């Protein structure tokens, strides 16, 4: 027994030694490859993109579903972007056509004609035609199929009608003019009719486990909890992608992801502002902060049982207590990662303006307003999700600044699930403030559900009949000049009413391995990182 025990021990030590030795070669294969490739990079920087190689992108979880009609989470949307090509995309106001060649509205803006590119194919070689687009939209509209996108295709209670004109032409008939319709189509990536037409419940179909798309990369392998690998689709209409494959490595813990990035096991990943310097210090990554069209804001719950926040003067006073620059500094470290926000609409939204009233850093004015509103010595409660370092820092800063104007603020850090349940509960009266953020897309009509009286997502319970009227008008106004005026007025009124305190238009930070190029052509995009992965290449 003694001899056996020692034998096993020696074996294990040997195993460790063998592993340690071989680790120098393959355990850090990416890091080793990196040094070789950096040498190549000097030549590639001046020349044409090279073909071949693979890219590893870090993601936080397994995808929920690889079907664009159901993808709502960041990881599924990111992977779907590579597998399923969209009709067209809009980024910073610039429209780029992918599967579509053109989108033409009729003079009365009630009919939109979509022309598809010719000779489009699915990953399995079948032709992609107007039938697939019509099928996709009809499945989105079918209530039994539970697509998240359905309500976007219902305008004023009536569905959009979609029909095929010929193999490459699709016609959309709207029940009424809706300038936001293009923004709705941006979210659509067709799914193949020949794969799904006999499926009773597409959401739960096992065919989603081996998706067939039309994007630059096709599905190859999925190991749950580990990774998903996609391989190059040679018949991609945008031209053969440069990389042979793209892998999404699942790393759930953010500390572990940061370490894996430093170790060269991941080539692309999101980075927290506080980790930027560490990642930069490796010398292996470029850092790209980019706007996701997200607003971080302090919400005033006008429905709270304090019964004071429904007074405009009180909300203005609380806003006057804060200094936006300090708030950004304490929570994001610098303005490199957060732009100054004044409007409730984000910078990427049509007709956005920061030229609106803003109540910032005037303690005397704040005290005056509180006195005139009869709200001195207020005691308020703020809710934040526990573990969110940015929001924790913001809440503590706000608490400190409110003290200066005689307002006591209790910070209630909650479990993140409980926090979101309370935040969206329109009947919740037991909190006064919350810190949150939203990404609403580029059309201002999306903001109607946030600020219209009684709307489903009007979590602050704001109500202003004039704003309601303007938001309704904006939704149906086809004249862009008039529409612009309407939304400028809306922004001014929301700001003057201090319905929220806009903190910052936050930026997402991506670390990108210096061994790779083509990031400008691939276009950094909110939520999904890259708009077109086919353009990334190994230097």
């Amino acid at each position, binding site marked *: 027994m*003694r001899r056996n*025990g020692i034998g*096993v*021990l020696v074996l294990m030590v040997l*195993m*460790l030694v*063998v*592993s*340690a030795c*071989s*680790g*120098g070669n393959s*355990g*850090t*294969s990416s*890091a080793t490859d990196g040094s070789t490739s950096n040498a190549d990079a000097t030549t590639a920087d001046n020349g044409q993109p090279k073909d071949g190689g693979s890219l*590893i992108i870090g993601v936080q*979880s*397994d*995808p929920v*579903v690889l079907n664009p009609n159901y993808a*709502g*989470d960041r990881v599924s949307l990111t992977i779907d972007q590579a597998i399923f090509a969209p009709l067209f995309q809009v980024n910073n106001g610039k429209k780029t056509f992918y599967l579509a060649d053109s989108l033409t509205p009729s003079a009365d803006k009630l009919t939109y004609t979509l022309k598809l590119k010719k000779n489009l194919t699915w990953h399995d070689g079948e032709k992609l035609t107007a039938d697939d687009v019509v099928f996709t939209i009809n499945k989105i509209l079918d*209530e039994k199929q*539970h697509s*998240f996108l*359905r*309500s*976007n295709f219902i305008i004023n209670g009536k569905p959009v009608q979609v029909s095929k004109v010929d193999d490459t032409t699709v016609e959309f008939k709207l029940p009424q003019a809706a300038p936001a319709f293009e923004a709705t189509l941006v979210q659509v990536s067709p799914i193949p009719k020949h794969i799904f037409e006999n499926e009773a419940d597409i959401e*739960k179909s096992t065919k989603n486990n081996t998706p067939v798309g039309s994007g630059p990369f096709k599905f190859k392998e999925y190991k*749950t*909890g*580990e*990774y998903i*690998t996609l391989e190059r689709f040679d018949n991609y209409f945008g031209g053969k992608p440069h990389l042979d494959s793209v*892998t999404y*490595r*699942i*790393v*759930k*813990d953010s*500390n*572990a992801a940061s*370490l*894996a990035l430093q*170790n060269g*096991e991941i080539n692309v990943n999101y980075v927290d502002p506080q980790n930027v310097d560490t990642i930069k210090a490796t010398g292996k990554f470029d850092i790209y902060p980019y706007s996701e069209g997200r607003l971080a804001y302090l919400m005033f719950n006008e429905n709270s049982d304090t019964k004071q926040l429904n007074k405009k003067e009180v909300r203005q006073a609380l806003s006057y207590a804060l200094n936006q620059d300090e708030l950004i500094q304490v929570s994001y470290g610098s303005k490199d990662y957060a732009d100054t926000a004044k409007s409730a609409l984000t910078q990427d939204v049509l007709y956005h303006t920061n030229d609106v009233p803003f109540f910032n850093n005037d303690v005397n004015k704040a005290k005056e307003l509180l006195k005139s509103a009869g709200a001195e010595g207020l005691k308020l409660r703020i809710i934040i999700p526990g573990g969110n370092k940015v929001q924790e820092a913001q809440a503590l800063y706000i608490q400190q600044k409110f003290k200066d104007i005689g307002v006591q603020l209790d910070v209630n850090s*909650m*479990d*993140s*699930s409980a926090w*979101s*349940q309370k935040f*969206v509960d329109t009947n919740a009266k037991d909190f006064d403030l919350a810190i949150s953020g939203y990404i*609403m*897309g580029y059309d201002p009509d*999306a903001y109607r*559900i946030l600020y219209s009286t009684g709307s*489903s*997502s009007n979590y602050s319970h704001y109500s202003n009949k004039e704003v309601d009227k303007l938001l309704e008008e904006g939704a149906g106004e086809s004249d862009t000049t008039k529409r612009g005026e309407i939304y400028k007025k809306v922004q001014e009124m929301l700001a003057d009413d201090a319905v929220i305190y806009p903190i910052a238009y936050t930026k997402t930070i991506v670390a990108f391995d210096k061994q790779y190029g083509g990031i400008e052509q691939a276009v950094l995009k909110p939520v999904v990182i890259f708009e077109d992965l086919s353009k990334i290449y190994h230097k």
Partner: protein
Amino acid sequence: MRQLIARRLLQVIPMLFFISIICFGLIKLAPGDPVLSFVTPNMHLEDIERMRHSLGLDQPAYVQYVLWLKKSLTGDLGYSLINHQPVLDQILDRLPATAGLMGASIILAVLIAIPLGLLAAANRNRWIDKLINLMSYIGISVPLFWLGILLIYLFAIYLHWLPSTGMRTIGTDSVLDVLKHGILPCFVLAFSFLSVYVRYIRSSTITQLKEEYVQIQYAFGSGKRLVLFRHVLKHVLLPIITLLGMSAADLVAGAIVTETVFSWPGIGSLGMTAVKGMDYPVIMGITLFSALFLILGNLLADILYSIADPRIKSTR
């Protein structure tokens, strides 16, 4: 023996039933709503309600439990609320990774703990004993996630010896590659109960060293090493079987932390994701499997103990 096994196996059924009720009740009492993880700002209230209905979450809690129980009795643990995959398939898919990690960790912990415990006992109150004691205290106090990150930094980032995440290099299926990926998580998980083992073996050995049979061996002129390994060790090893059974709970808890830190694709990391997303069916499935593992672990320990020491049977 057969009677003992049969009786204990029969006890598993009411225990699992009881655990399932407690677990279901706790999930329902916990704050949060699984549907909220799907909500996007442009979703309408009707969509959210429709989703809640299609998932059966609009039913009273007891109805949901009865429906779940009925299905479970037929071996169907339902579907994940998040990705609609069968719960049983997901668990079975992840089980080998967790089993491998746990098995290797136990072996490693025992192999390290026995010589260290014996060494400490044989050199009681000397510097080596004090050093091992100090290390044990540190081991008990160190949080696993911190140790994990520290080791990743040292062995992956600084020395470049080992990979920091996952179970294999992408696209590779070689056993050596998996072993290499397993070294750090296996060591961290082993560490969670290694210190307890060392202290137990040390104190157990010290007790044995005072026994009459040890003194007799010394009187016959046997050396210290011979006495320790030939006579004392077998007496010390016996209670370790019980200790192994008791470690089952630590193993499950440790696996959750270790798998999350190292992105090890086992049941622990699956459970962590399920808890974050309030994925009730997956939480229930994993709880049942963990409970079964704990019960069977203890049963196995009892059986082994009664095989090793037949006197035990007569007292049961």
